[in-house]
């Protein structure tokens, strides 16, 4: 699809689907389900949003706990500081990941979370996609005696590294991932006492395929002008469902209705902001304690986040329609797709300039906003250098702001507002900003 015109607009009918309300309902139901998991003797697995082998775990009926989502929820619910301080009093360094600290606070509060009681896990799957995942899982391993499986996923080795399905390199990487899946399956069988069911895996994969198809259509809709959703606010609800409900019927239905809803919005020429003046790309992770405020600072200037690379890496790199499972060979295909998706997710950080250059083009953005996270080296270590590259080599205006994932002590409203204002003034000086002047609005 092109940004310029919408060839086949969807019918301009109002619909009764409210993605935010529906997303919140699904998350609430998920937490309610978790609350009773231990009492029901359900198998529970701790997993992360990237590189998590969810399809295998679902085939064993594991209830899934996402500790990152628990931590960010303490931020959204304005309770993170209490959890972080508890962990620092216990001895954790102020310099480590605030998600981990919030989770240690959760352990110290005996799993009492603002969204409900978090169940004890019978397995943890940590991948090497973020180095901290491994250290985090080691905390559970030591402290709670949670059996841990570390999934090693090879990433992009060098700049310009191209691996396509069927390449010798891809085949080698997929073989290694599949060997680890076999180990994980054996461990799941021991923990649950169930035999692995290949057909069930294929069923989960079929549902993931549908979700990914809808997900990619949803993302592509934001290439339209005006953008129907804000990738950094609405997008967070979508990615939450993409993770928590990956491979469930509810997940498929949510994504289907979301696509329908947004198509209708595009058909009506309805954008997220009333008067879209600047299309922006957000690089990094939001500050969850001030997320609305952050988006508001941009929207008051008519700036909309048409895309965010967060939606790539927090989906584990599953943001491409070619990454579909072949359900006739479920396990091999899972390994092949995982190897490619992981590489995509990792490239998004370690060779970010390549991915960003493509996304800037795809979403025709006017500028890139980088959000450095003080306690996250995965997201932030190469960010200032990437910014320099985008700014100078691609001649795309950029803004760099800094705070934290969920630690409110690092959010400085006045300082960030000043920088945002200056950024928009600079965009104006470049000749941008005339309301919808150079963009063709999609109309029904």
């Amino acid at each position, binding site marked *: 699809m092109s940004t310029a015109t919408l060839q086949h607009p969807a019918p301009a009918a109002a619909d009764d689907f409210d993605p935010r309300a529906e997303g919140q309902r699904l998350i609430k139901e998920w937490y309610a389900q978790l609350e009773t998991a231990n009492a029901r003797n359900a198998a529970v697995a701790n997993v992360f949003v990237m590189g998590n082998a969810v399809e295998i775990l679902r085939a064993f009926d594991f209830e899934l706990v996402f500790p990152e989502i628990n931590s960010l929820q303490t931020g959204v619910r304005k309770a993170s500081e209490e959890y972080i301080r508890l962990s620092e009093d216990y001895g954790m360094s102020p310099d480590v990941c605030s998600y981990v600290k919030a989770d240690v606070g959760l352990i110290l509060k005996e799993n009492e979370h603002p969204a409900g009681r978090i169940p004890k896990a019978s397995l943890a799957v940590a991948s090497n996609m973020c180095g901290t995942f491994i250290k985090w899982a080691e905390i559970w391993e030591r402290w709670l005696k949670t059996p841990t499986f570390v999934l090693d996923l090879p990433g992009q080795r060098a700049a310009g590294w191209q691996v396509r399905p069927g390449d010798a390199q891809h085949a080698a990487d997929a073989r290694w991932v599949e060997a680890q899946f076999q180990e994980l399956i054996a461990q799941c069988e021991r923990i649950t006492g169930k035999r692995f069911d290949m057909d069930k895996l294929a069923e989960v994969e079929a549902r993931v395929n549908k979700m990914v198809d809808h997900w990619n259509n949803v993302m592509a809709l934001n290439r339209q002008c005006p953008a129907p959703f804000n990738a950094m606010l609405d997008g967070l609800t979508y990615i939450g469902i993409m993770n928590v409900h990956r491979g469930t019927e509810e997940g498929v239905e949510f994504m289907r209705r979301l696509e329908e809803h947004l198509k209708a919005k595009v058909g009506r020429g309805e954008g997220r902001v009333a008067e879209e003046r600047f299309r922006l790309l957000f690089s990094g992770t939001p500050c969850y304690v001030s997320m609305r405020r952050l988006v508001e600072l941009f929207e008051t200037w008519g700036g909309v986040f048409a895309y965010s690379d967060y939606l790539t890496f927090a989906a584990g790199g599953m943001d491409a329609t070619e990454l579909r499972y072949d359900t006739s060979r479920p396990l091999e295909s899972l390994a092949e797709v995982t190897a490619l998706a992981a590489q995509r997710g990792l490239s998004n950080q370690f060779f970010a300039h390549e991915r960003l250059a493509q996304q800037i083009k795809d979403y025709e953005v006017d500028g890139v906003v980088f959000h450095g996270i*003080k306690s996250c080296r995965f997201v932030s*270590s190469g960010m200032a250098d990437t910014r320099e590259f985008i700014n100078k080599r691609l001649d795309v205006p950029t803004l760099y702001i800094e705070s934290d994932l969920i630690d409110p002590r690092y959010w400085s409203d006045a300082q960030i507002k000043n920088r945002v204002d200056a950024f928009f003034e600079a965009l104006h000086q470049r000749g941008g900003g005339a309301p919808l002047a150079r963009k063709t609005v999609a109309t029904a």
Partner: protein
Amino acid sequence: MNAPVPYDHEIELSNVLERCNAAARETAIPSQDELPEGFSGTLGHFPVYFPEEIAHAAGLLPVNILGGGNKLEMKHADARMGSFVCSICRSTTELGLNGTLQGMTGFVTHPICDAAKHLAGIWSRNLPDQLAQILYLPQNVNTPGAARYIAAEYQRLRADLEKKTGRAIDDEALRNSIRSYNANRRLLRELYRIRRDEPWKVSCTESYLLLRARTRMPCEEHNALLARALDAIRHRSLPAQDKPRVVFVGGFCEQPPLEMLEAIDETCYVVDDDILVGLRWLTADVPETGDPIWALAESYVERSDASPVQHDARKMKEDYLMDMLRKSKADAAILTAAKFCEPGLDEQLAWSKHLDAENIPYLVLEFEEKMTSFEQMSMQVETFAESLLFALA
């Protein structure tokens, strides 16, 4: 006619240490004209472990890039890396941007932590002529197939180096390199044995200088230096002092300043440590026959040390610290972590909780390669040593 000067072990050791000290303090890499015979370029690699044998066999001098120490002025890197990133990553970036490392043929980093992995991207954006890459050493060595995967990674690296240098790396060249490095491993094991058994003969600082010298010279030259040093150390007749025996952990990546090690040596015998553990990563000889790539890969899985940056279900972190304490008959531990080093800081806390439970005394220190003031740290270490001696008396 002058009488022949009697051989003096102390002078000999002093000469070797002087040479090592010069090498250890060197951040620059040898220029094309300064390269030792047989080498056509340099391959930089970041801690912790790198299979130097492959670079060595390619005729590339392996150079362990260990940041800029406390003398480097940061002019570029502060604007390219956040203030919350560890010093070694920032100063390595500075050395790349200020031209110090410009002449390298390539630079390889590893998945030891996320900041380290970002160095490959920074390198590719700023020094595109170099072969810059991440060597994926697995975080799961417990699954069968790990050695095969590592071997494939090593083969890939071998092919990349061949392409870059235009020189084939045949198996025999690799076996020769393995032989040289096996000799090096044996010498280093002997150095650490003396540290454990007769710590008054060689201090932690001296041992560190001897070890670190390998980061800037060919393995064969380092072997000759180590042999001379060990001979001199064995002949040393220094009296044992009343100092507590400690192990020092946390120096696996970013380098503790020399002054910090000296301050600890003043009052303690450091009988074991994990400083530059990557240079001693393989704990036994690598097979010198058969497929050399497989021999290296299999050694990584089956005969390797432990570190906070590697997950191996067979090496529980508390266990390997306890093992170090036991084998070296140490009375206590000094737990350090470099500032902003997430793996180090997480590990430090877990270790300290475990030592609390085991009732083993320890001291927690945080350091940065760029620190310049050591008075307070010296006082802390001294107080710690005194309390240990009092308790042990």
